[in-house]
């Protein structure tokens, strides 16, 4: 089967709910899409010789065009269907500027989500099956509770295939997501994810348990967020993996302060102990409106490995400007890595990156 046949097959499974949606009389609240293009200039350090050769700086360009369409449709009698599909053309699908692809333009298509749901008891019990993104974390810079992101990409938008039951009480909710091992979905082992959420005054607490069907021990997590007055929101998360072979504790605490003019200042701190070495991370972000449609942000992420001196910090710094209109937006960003060797950012090949992204919406 050719590559294009594969892409068409993927798209078909995502498009059928969209086609079905157009045959139904309900108003199309959920039909939405975006078309975007992005260009980036990246400077990396590469070693192009035998050991001991001094690294050289290499500039590369990366362009990507992407179309995403999604739809959510009520089917009647409590049933609903939704799907999100993506098609892209990319000059650097790996994202690794040291690993250039053989073709100059790589097409790809993915079904990010496809879900059929049924509200068995209105407001009390919902059931569903299909492909769905699972994102339990409320954090921004580091997400201890997002255990099921694809690969190591925390921004992965592709869901997992499985079935879910969710129950809603007066001030609580509980759900179970069960996923079988599916080769086509890239899930090597079946797993179950249980979630319990409790609303206590102005605080939301959630507890999670993830269990694979192998003999590994379950992973547990606890998260909470709350608000204080009109200005402040707070959040904290902790996740623990009790597997003796790979013990891990991952924690985060953060806050967002909003001023009267809607400028937001965010701080997050995390400590991720992967058993071999811990990493302490601090994150700060300042964002606000320069004009009605023009927003700006700047952020700094600093990282220190366990046992390192405080002076041995590395990290990333970045900023961006975004112009937003009703049907399109444009964003310019830059990012730079800093820090001495021995830090993640210092050892990273990436030195800096600038980018421009334009999106249209419908």
């Amino acid at each position, binding site marked *: 089967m050719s590559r294009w046949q594969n892409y068409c097959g993927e798209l078909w499974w995502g498009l059928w709910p969209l086609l079905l949606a157009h045959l139904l009389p309900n108003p199309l609240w959920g039909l*939405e899409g975006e078309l975007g293009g992005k260009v980036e200039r990246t400077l990396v350090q590469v070693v192009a010789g035998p050991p001991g050769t001094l690294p050289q700086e290499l500039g590369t360009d990366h362009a990507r065009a992407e179309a995403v369409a999604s739809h959510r449709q009520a089917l009647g009698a409590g049933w609903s269907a939704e799907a999100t599909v993506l098609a892209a053309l990319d000059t650097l699908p790996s994202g690794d500027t040291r690993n250039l692809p053989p073709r100059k333009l790589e097409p790809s298509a993915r079904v990010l989500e496809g879900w059929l749901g049924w509200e068995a008891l209105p407001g009390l019990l919902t059931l569903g099956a299909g492909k769905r993104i699972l994102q339990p974390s409320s954090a921004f810079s580091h997400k201890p509770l997002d255990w099921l992101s694809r690969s190591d990409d925390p921004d992965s938008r592709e869901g997992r295939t499985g079935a879910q039951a969710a129950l809603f009480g007066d001030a609580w909710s509980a759900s179970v997501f069960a996923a079988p091992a599916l080769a086509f979905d890239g899930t090597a082992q079946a797993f179950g994810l249980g979630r319990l959420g409790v609303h206590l005054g102005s605080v939301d607490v959630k507890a999670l348990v993830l269990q694979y069907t192998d003999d590994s021990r379950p992973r547990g997590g606890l998260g909470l967020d709350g*608000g204080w007055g*009109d200005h402040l929101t707070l959040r904290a998360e902790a996740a623990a993996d009790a597997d003796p072979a790979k013990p891990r504790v991952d924690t985060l605490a953060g806050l967002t302060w909003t001023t009267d003019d809607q400028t937001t200042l965010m701080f997050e701190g995390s400590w991720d102990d992967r058993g071999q070495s811990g990493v302490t991370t601090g994150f700060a972000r300042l964002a606000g409106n320069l004009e009605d449609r023009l927003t700006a942000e700047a952020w700094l992420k600093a990282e220190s490995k366990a046992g390192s001196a405080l002076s041995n910090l590395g990290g990333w710094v970045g900023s961006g400007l975004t112009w937003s209109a*009703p049907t399109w937006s444009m964003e310019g960003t830059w990012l730079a890595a800093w820090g001495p060797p021995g830090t993640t950012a210092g050892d990273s090949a990436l030195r800096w990156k600038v980018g421009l992204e334009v999106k249209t919406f419908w």
Partner: protein
Amino acid sequence: MPFPKIIPFVLAATVSLAAVTAEPIPDPTELLTKVDQRRFVPDMDFTLTLTAYKDSQVVEESALWGWVKADPQGTKALLAFVEPASTKGRKMLMDGPTVYLLFPKTRNPIRLSPLQVLVGQSSNGDVARASFSQDYDAQGLTSEEREGKPCWVFALAAKADRQGSAYRKVSLWVEKETLRPVAADFFGTGEQKLKHATYGDFRTVGDKTVAFRLDIGDGADPAKHTVLQYGKVGRQALPNGAFRRDYLEGWTPEMPQ
């Protein structure tokens, strides 16, 4: 990603819901409670358009569908964003001072502070969520004529647990004969007026008389104002369970009929 600029006005729409009554009550607290009790239509659903002006120029237009559930503990609202395309697909739950927003193609509603969902450069939030008797103490009641109509004028001050609110004081005009809200001025810690709201286009919905139009002006810049206009107002009920954070991701809004 900018937060939706139309949100703050949503519950403001419910502020404009008024009922016809006749008897003026001299005690300001009791009268304010009565005005408030008649402001909300329980289990209301609606379509709403919001048009922002600068001078006479339209600078932004938005549309949403909403569902409101009011009970003695407070008011909750579910919102589905319809227009513009850049915000379409967002879903929001407003539960008292707590606000949750779910972006399209994500699964975890994020918690926002009330100020994060305000309009533009100023604080419309308390205009939007003004449940006067819950958030303010009635410190005075006077009488004056406004636009030829005898009105009660309430002097309101934020309650102790709402001192973090952007609006510390409110002047509220209520028509004596009908107890309909006519206008409100919102102030911060000083004497400068931050927002001004007027209510109009009253229509009958069930046994209530509803203000289908709310005009919110910027106290600092008289050229700026936003008009909220109801299209449909109905009594379609959503179950209590729908007004929960974890329900947002599975909720499929259907256009109010």
